[in-house]
């Protein structure tokens, strides 16, 4: 039993963090709210030059041949930066169903193919304006469809999300992968989103702590008020206890454990709950300043709202855990 990341994994994370701090500051995220793709093409290219989109692509297809565990902290960093890219969909989910599709995998590695994805049970998919292809995940595999660019049909509260109704795409496209790949893809979708949410939460909390140290009212920083302290301590608490469930699920996927799906569901439940509490706390401790679109917090908060319902809601994943643990005799102990 050793529950810690390796030096290499932490170094990879740090490198991605450094890249995103310099290349994807809040102003760049803000641009993706306005531009035609909803994405940040330059940042994606730079991530590709560090190998990020191809982390899970086999070396035989030009990728790094790494595991979910190697990548989970990288996704968390993308969440921290609120990176408006289909990192979960293209780099985490899609490779599960594109086994042997050397062409597509190669383009993922190169950063020239962006695939968005969603479970077939979901109503929407994101990145409809900026992704090249859509992967719809059903019970027996995936369906791939080409996106024409600018395919968004609806507007998300997070203006960089560019969602479209899945309905029109369900029947279309190539059949890729198999049932096992589909299960893996769904689990990766939930887990990747959970990791991204933890990153969003960590960032929102940090911004709020910094604000609470600076903002003076009644002659002292608001962070010296017990009410603010306790709000922030509670938020940190939920966030810190979401992490181990996320990392554990990543390990289980990487090691092909039979309960990995269950672990991914637990991770999504906790990440959803943590992100919601942190969002609420961050907004409340900021007061009015956090309630404007001029301040950056709102972009993190809205991403968190959107992701809470993606790849399964809290109720969905609680139910999934319940089916396996609570409803089945002999399991819980």
């Amino acid at each position, binding site marked *: 039993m050793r529950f810690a990341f390796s030096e290499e994994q932490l170094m990879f994370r740090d490198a991605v963090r450094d890249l995103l701090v310099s290349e994807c500051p809040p102003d760049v995220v803000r641009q993706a709210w306005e531009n035609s793709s909803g994405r940040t093409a330059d940042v994606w290219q730079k991530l590709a030059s560090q190998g990020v989109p191809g982390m899970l692509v086999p070396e035989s297809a030009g990728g790094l041949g790494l595991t979910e565990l190697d990548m989970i902290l990288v996704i968390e960093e993308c969440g921290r930066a609120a990176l408006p890219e289909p990192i979960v969909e293209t780099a985490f989910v899609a490779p599960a169903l594109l086994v042997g599709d050397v062409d597509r995998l190669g383009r993922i590695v190169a950063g020239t193919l962006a695939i968005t994805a969603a479970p077939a049970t979901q109503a*929407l998919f994101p990145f409809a304006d900026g992704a090249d292809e859509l992967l719809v995940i059903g019970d027996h595999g995936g369906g791939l469809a080409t996106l024409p660019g600018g395919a968004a049909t*609806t507007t998300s509260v997070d203006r960089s999300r560019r969602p479209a109704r899945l309905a029109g795409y369900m029947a279309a496209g190539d059949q890729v992968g198999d049932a096992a790949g589909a299960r893996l893809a769904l689990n990766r979708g939930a887990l990747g989103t959970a990791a991204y949410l933890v990153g969003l939460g960590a960032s929102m909390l940090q911004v709020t702590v910094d604000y609470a140290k600076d903002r003076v*009212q009644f002659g002292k920083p608001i962070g010296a008020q017990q009410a603010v302290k306790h709000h922030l301590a509670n938020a940190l608490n939920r966030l810190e206890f979401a992490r181990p469930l996320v990392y554990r699920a990543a390990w289980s996927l990487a090691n092909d454990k039979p309960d990995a799906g269950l672990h991914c569901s637990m991770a999504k439940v906790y990440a959803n709950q943590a992100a919601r509490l942190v969002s609420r706390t961050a907004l409340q401790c900021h007061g*009015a300043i956090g309630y*404007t*679109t001029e301040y950056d917090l709102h972009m993190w908060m809205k991403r968190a709202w959107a992701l809470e319902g993606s790849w399964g809601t809290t109720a969905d994943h609680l139910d999934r855990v319940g089916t396996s643990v609570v409803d089945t005799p002999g399991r819980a102990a």
Partner: protein
Amino acid sequence: MMDLEFSPQQEAFRQECREWLRANVPRGYKSGDTREGFQQHLQWEQELFANRWAVVSWPEAYGGRDASLMEWLIFEEEYYLAGCPPRITQNGIFLLAPTIFEYGTDEQKDRILRPMAAAEHLWAQGWSEPNAGSDLANVKSSARRTDGGRLLTGQKTWCTRGAFCDSAFGLFRTDPDAQRHKGLTYFLFPLKADGVTVRGVERLDGDLGFAEVFLEDVFVPDQDVLGEVNQGWYVAMSTTSSERGLSLRSPGRFMATAARLVDLYRRSRETADPALRQAVIQAWIDTEAYRWYTFQTATRMVDGHNIGAESSLTKLFWSDMDIQLHETALSLIGDLAELDEGSDSAVDGGDWLKGYQFSLAGPIYAGTNEIQRNIVAERVLGLPRK
């Protein structure tokens, strides 16, 4: 004797409200915090005024119907249950007007109230400054004596709908030597005058709901001082107390939200998690509790009691309830919840997300809930300040 039914007169009043409102409720308005929507809402306000529905509780002389407090609550219920839009005149008629009724001169009443009710002259609040938020007494903007009035200088912020309004009200330091709560005066000041710069600020939902107001030697005549000079803090407190209390958030709007939530649940229960049913029921009961609490409070006011610090309890309750109502709705909507009002795939036109964003401001504006809890603890429960 306790009587929890409305009198025949009250029922008749309700009926009259209901008929007119349901016949005239406008549909398809944009948000009142956008330029286009503001104009639509303006029309609606003018129509309300023309039919004497704008300020039912005011004296007839100012465009009202002399309605009682209970009748006003009835009007509010009918207003929101009919689906009528938010009141863009709110900061005037609910925040400023009660203070004018209490502290204003006859000249001020005659000059200000009717155009306010008619939405001919629109009012924004100007309480906060960059360094005076929760700590309102930290106001730095000043008012310097000049011939026939004063020159205002400073910065006000988070002025609701300030970008669309004609005037604002707020506190300015008239005695530069006095500290904090002392030496402040309550001014009515123009937003469209020499020396005033108004910069609209987008709210969470992207609407231009706020403004920053920069003032540089803006002339305000003496007749636009409300109450006594240097007594502004005490004059203002009467307004913030109404802001938190009954007049800001009457039960009607939450009853309407709960009814819509129940309707949403019925439409989604086939697919919704069974645990959400309990959340819907709880939210509905919450609005009942708020309604009956309000009737209890209103009865005490009718009996001449001062509500005072208890209005903080009210604010804590409705602000939490409003978030719960909307969070429950968003959980029912599932992955479509992220779609906002711009999207025709959105459930119920994206109203739930819009409402959720608005509800999140509840624990912040009109004094944060942390401040309200302090007030409840210190002034209702009598716990020591320090």
